[in-house]
């Protein structure tokens, strides 16, 4: 039977809207979603698909997101009731929109897809998030690239925009050094999966649903605990391994998580850090982190495994990173590097079963090329030693390699 594919037209569009950045630059456009004024750190993402996944990624907390891809909203927003096999929402990374505001060049006035439930502007309206369209997003991106990320305000209104309100909003906006954990972490412990399976504790510093999905996929049960859960409580679950999730903001403000991780190091439990989790592990080990000028946000970032020299496309969403020269005495060594700028994309302990990556192996949005990180983690838990994904070069006996050798 043929399924009827819904086509829905936008409803909450055509409002007045304006952006003012910290440096005083202003951009006028058309508002959509919910009319209100918000402040936040302006960041850009270069991914071309996956706005429902991106907007619900808790790592964006406190930020106003500018999409570099110009046409957003084409396939609408699916229903929250569409679940994966584990009962997790298929298209959403958390239970709400996490960005403070959305900046696009064009929001589609119509949405069409098999799974479309509502339009993007309607969803933003429902979740009380403002959006602005008609912006020269390339120009805004260049500004952020050149000057670095900065605070700013976005105002959407049915009436005329009052500039003063935006300036006041910027002044009241906190990002750097601000602890977002209470806004993104679970309040109390939650469990997922078959209760008879062995547990993995997920320290929720703003986790994405896809991380939970991938742990379940590994064949474990997930115990998702608040970000500040003490060591003893974590150990009381008798976990087979620990995963420290992604999350928003500066890792250095997650004091209690860092303290917990320091204790976990001595427990000899396998640990996997993802994104913020990677930074927290580095800090706990005595390394240092820094703020990137304009972050890495997109789905096209090549990361190279320094051991095998294999390069994978990864999804990234981070504004902070691990300082490369600070790992010296930590017992950790570089595992993955960014193929473009050689910054650290993953670390690995020399003797303990601890690995961490700066990118998002759970993808969503983005490429699934690094799902094998979870497999590596599973190998650590099962004490198989961390196998690297590698291919048999012999299988690909193209003339090429030989030619190069011949030349030398």
């Amino acid at each position, binding site marked *: 039977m043929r399924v009827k594919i819904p086509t829905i037209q936008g409803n909450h569009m055509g409002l007045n809207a304006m952006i003012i950045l910290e440096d005083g630059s202003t951009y006028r456009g058309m508002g959509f979603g919910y009319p209100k004024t918000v402040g936040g750190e302006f960041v850009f993402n270069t991914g071309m698909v996956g706005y429902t996944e991106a907007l619900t990624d808790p790592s964006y907390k406190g930020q106003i997101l500018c999409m570099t891809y110009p046409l957003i909203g084409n396939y609408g927003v699916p229903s929250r009731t569409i679940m994966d096999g584990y009962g997790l929402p298929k298209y959403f990374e958390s239970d709400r929109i996490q960005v403070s505001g959305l900046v696009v060049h064009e929001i589609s006035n119509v949405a*069409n897809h098999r799974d479309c439930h509502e339009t993007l502007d309607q969803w933003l309206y429902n979740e009380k998030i403002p959006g602005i369209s008609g912006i020269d997003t390339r120009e805004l*991106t260049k500004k952020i690239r050149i000057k670095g990320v900065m605070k700013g305000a976005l105002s959407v209104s049915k009436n005329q925009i009052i500039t003063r309100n935006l300036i006041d909003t910027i002044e009241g906006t906190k990002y750097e050094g601000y602890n977002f954990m209470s806004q993104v972490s679970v309040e109390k412990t939650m469990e997922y999966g078959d209760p008879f399976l062995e547990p993995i504790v997920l320290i929720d510093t703003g986790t994405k649903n896809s991380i939970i999905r991938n742990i379940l996929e590994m064949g474990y049960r997930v115990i998702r605990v608040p970000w500040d859960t003490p060591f003893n409580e974590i150990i009381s679950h008798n976990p087979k391994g620990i995963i420290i999730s992604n999350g928003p903001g500066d890792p250095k403000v997650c004091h209690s998580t860092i303290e917990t991780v320091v204790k976990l190091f001595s427990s000899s439990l396998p640990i996997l850090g993802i994104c913020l989790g990677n930074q927290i592990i580095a800090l706990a080990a005595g390394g240092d982190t820094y703020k990137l000028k304009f972050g890495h946000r997109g789905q096209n*970032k090549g990361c*190279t495994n320094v051991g095998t020299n294999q390069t994978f496309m990864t999804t990234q969403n981070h504004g902070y990173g691990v300082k490369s020269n600070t790992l010296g005495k930590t017992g950790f060594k570089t595992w993955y590097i960014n193929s473009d700028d050689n910054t650290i994309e993953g670390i690995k302990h020399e003797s303990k079963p601890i690995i961490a990556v700066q990118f998002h192996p759970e993808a969503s949005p983005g490429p699934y090329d690094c799902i094998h990180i979870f497999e590596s983690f599973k190998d650590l838990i099962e004490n198989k030693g961390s196998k690297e994904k590698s291919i048999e070069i012999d299988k690909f006996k193209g003339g090429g390699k030989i030619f190069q050798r011949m030349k030398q």
Partner: protein
Amino acid sequence: MSEEGIKTILVNPNIATIQTDTRFASKVYLLPVNGYYIKQIIEKETPDSIMLAFGGQTALNCGVSLHDEGVIDKYKIQVLGTPINSIKITEDRQQFKTAMIKSNVPVLESSPAYNLREALDVANKLGYPVIIRVAYTLGGKGGGVAHNEYELQEIVQRGLSLSLVNQVLIEKYIGSWKQIEYEMMRDCTGNSVAICNMENVLGMRVHTGDNIVIAPSQTINNEEYHRLRSAAIRAIDYCGIIGECNIQFGLDPSSESYCAIEINARLSRSSALASKATGYPLAYMAAKIGLGYSLTELINSITKATTACFEPSLDYVVLKMPRWDFRKFELANRRIGTSMKSVGEVMAIGRSFEEVLQKAIRMNDAGKIGIVGNDENLKEELELVEQKLLYPSDEILFDVVKAMRLGIPISRINKLSTIDSWFLFKIKNVLDLYDKIHEVDVSDISENLLRKAKKYGFSDLQIGQALGLKEISVRKLRQKLGINPVVKQVDTLAAEWPAKTNYLYLTYGGDKDDIIFRKEKNSVMVLGAGPYRIGSSVEFDWGTVNMVWGLKNNGIKSVSVINCNPETVSTDYDISDRLYFEELSLERILDIYEKENPKGIVTCVGGQTANNLVPKLGQLNVRIIGTDSVHTDMAENREKFSQLLDSLNIKQPPWNKFTSIAEAKIFSRNVGFPVLVRPSYVLSGAAMKVIWNEDQLERYINEAAQVSPEYPIVISKFFQDSAEVEVDAVCNGNDVIIGALIEHIDNAGIHSGDAMMCIPPWRLNRQTMNTIVDYSNLIARKLKVKGPLNIQYLVKDEEVYVIEANVRASRTTPFVSKIVGINLISLASKAIINGSLPEGLNEPWLSISGFGIKVPQFSFMQLEGSDIVLGVEMQSTGEVACHGNSFYDALSKAYEAAGYNLPLSGSALITIGGQKNKAKMHSLISLINAMKFKILATEHTAEFIKNNITTNVQEVHKISEPVRKPNISDLLYDKKIDFIINIPSTSTIEKYVGMLDDEYQIRRKAVEMGIPVLTTVESAISFIHCLEWRNKNKPSINPLSKYHLN
């Protein structure tokens, strides 16, 4: 490869492409790309290795056959890039299917068939409709969708004959699914990246070559995008691709189902598109990977800082629109479907779907000003429009508009056309805005409305159409309101890294230019030629590129190119200082001109498209570099050119312009039929026609054309049995360098683009050549030509007539330049800049050794139904040329290069119309007989042969009389005919719609079966002499440079 210090030998008989310029490869062989020739070149040059992925399907097939024949092993040659075994997996349907299943990628249920019986069984099992695919062919050649047994039989028979391995694949048909493609790169260490994903707007129903393609995909979500991407990586990993490939998927819009359709393990038309769409140089990277580099070792050539191991992020939208030329083929079926029929394409870059759609439609240069605002015939019946949505033709987008105008709901249009509703709504947006503009009064038009229209890709002309204003008035109005486009860069990384390149486009979707315009006076803009089409193709790309290099060599600091054809080298961003991937419209050229403020614009290498803009640019006081607009007009305008020739005492065939049938008849009677008629308005069919009598003239004007004071027709005397000669020259206003005199091998009456040609002339006497040289000098000086010039002459009874002169690079400029060894465009770039031309180049065409012969390449096979008889309208889609020590050495190789088989024994089918033709063919038939061919002939021809030549002739029966045996139809299918001479009588040379006579049937079937058909006396003579020569001689194998004496 030259960056790596590697010596390269290029084999390609395509004379017009920049690729066969000696600048790139160490050695160029203008020879057929087939096993026989490549083997000999390998023996001669003893190369270390071979690359197969860069010459399309032709090279790939050739590589496989070289391997299978053991040539590659015997000479210990390495195949660089994707290995032969991997190629075989992707090419053989069954192996491919197995490979996909093993890599956990779904495929459609299907089975191969090696004969009709098997095919029928498979189809019955799968249930109709089914799609038939042919193993090892290009452009979906020979495949098709069958809804019943009858259609199946037709397609399978054609397909089996075309397949190298006599195999077709019968598959379930999924016409309503989306068609999504990925361009993939993979290196020999196993790194894989998806460079570009593309969505076909017309879905699975239409071959991607004929589809409207958008990049990146618009209607699929993250999960679908990456599910397919992951499948692509698994698939190419399994197949062991090294380099570049394209993978196509079908995706069901109403479920989670998808399937892999095919992998092209080579650079393709799609890869060229993907390269231009993303700025990622796929061919360059694939070459490096073939040499053994890994992706991470290579650098992104746009940022010059980041790795090539990444996936481009676009912050714009790209739309590819095919260019069809069905108008040239009266009998051709205009439906588009599973086999490719378009001859070229354009690509538009912008920041909204509406913008790129409308830009692309205009770029196509097919007479439309956008998706709306064209002459819309709304009288069509609803039912007919619905049929057209169901069975799309080249007009599909305009049929969608029609359907919307008729009030057919979008949901129904979607159901019939399978075009995703998102695209349909976007088209509706444009329509609605057009109507809104149409409703407002000129004085009330708001800035907002105008701005929105520009963002939706409306041109000034289109807005003018809606408002009742002239194009230039709209321009002034919007400029007064400060509505101007901005220049943006294509940088592969969505502005995340600083870009070091100037690959640019213009859009209204932004506020600021990406680049700074300095008041640089020493800059020049060069106009390209737009889409490849019949009559304007790759030769102008060669010209544009050489012009850019020439200008740079002559001290121009900044050369920018404007062009919109993704298949060209002129749109490679590293050719020019600035590349504007843009419309070649007056509006856009002015936009760029105003920003660039250059020294001037070069219009002489962009074919007729650029040339046609000269008068308008001249009127607006735009500086033209080259022949000025007054003199360009003098060459273009028939009356003015006639006066010029009169003043020089040079003859031309008598002609005149008419506004009524009566006058036309009187003139035609006076000069005598046949006459050549050129209407200025054509209702149907081709524009030019040879008319043989008064009745026909009347019928043609009444039925197909129109004549009125508004639409005059031009009639000129048509000389039968005359020779055509062309001259390509360069002039700096005073000095003239003639590159060559080129003689057509066919007699006049075949369009110069379809004619076989020869350098140096082989039949002209010295005196005629001198006259032509003198005339050319006189005309060039009188026209004050600065730059290239092409003049076409007619020689009848030793008398020289001028047909026309073009003050621009011509189709034959690369042919002349490469055969004679003098780059006419390099000289032209000197001529237009500082005037001095080198001395001592006296009749250079006479000093080459041997002959250079050009043979047209036709695509009749792809154009279902089209007749192959040539006429005054051009029909070929490409050309090849070969050099030879003798005339027949060159010609026989050129024939082979154009895909003809040269049978040295077997059977010839001869059917000749009219006594005069039969008489002309008398001696040739004797020769065929002497060469021991078995002669088959239809009734009258057989009788003629029996009575006059030989009794060695078997009478065969017409296709229209299938019960009478032996029948031509059976003989064709059983491959019992090796070549056909089918010369229609002069009265049936005239083609008209609906003609389905026997001769046409024979020609058509033969084309479908790949059997050579000769349709003119001259071509038959030259073909048979080639066979005769080949019987006794071997073709010469030499690189191009060998033939140049200097």
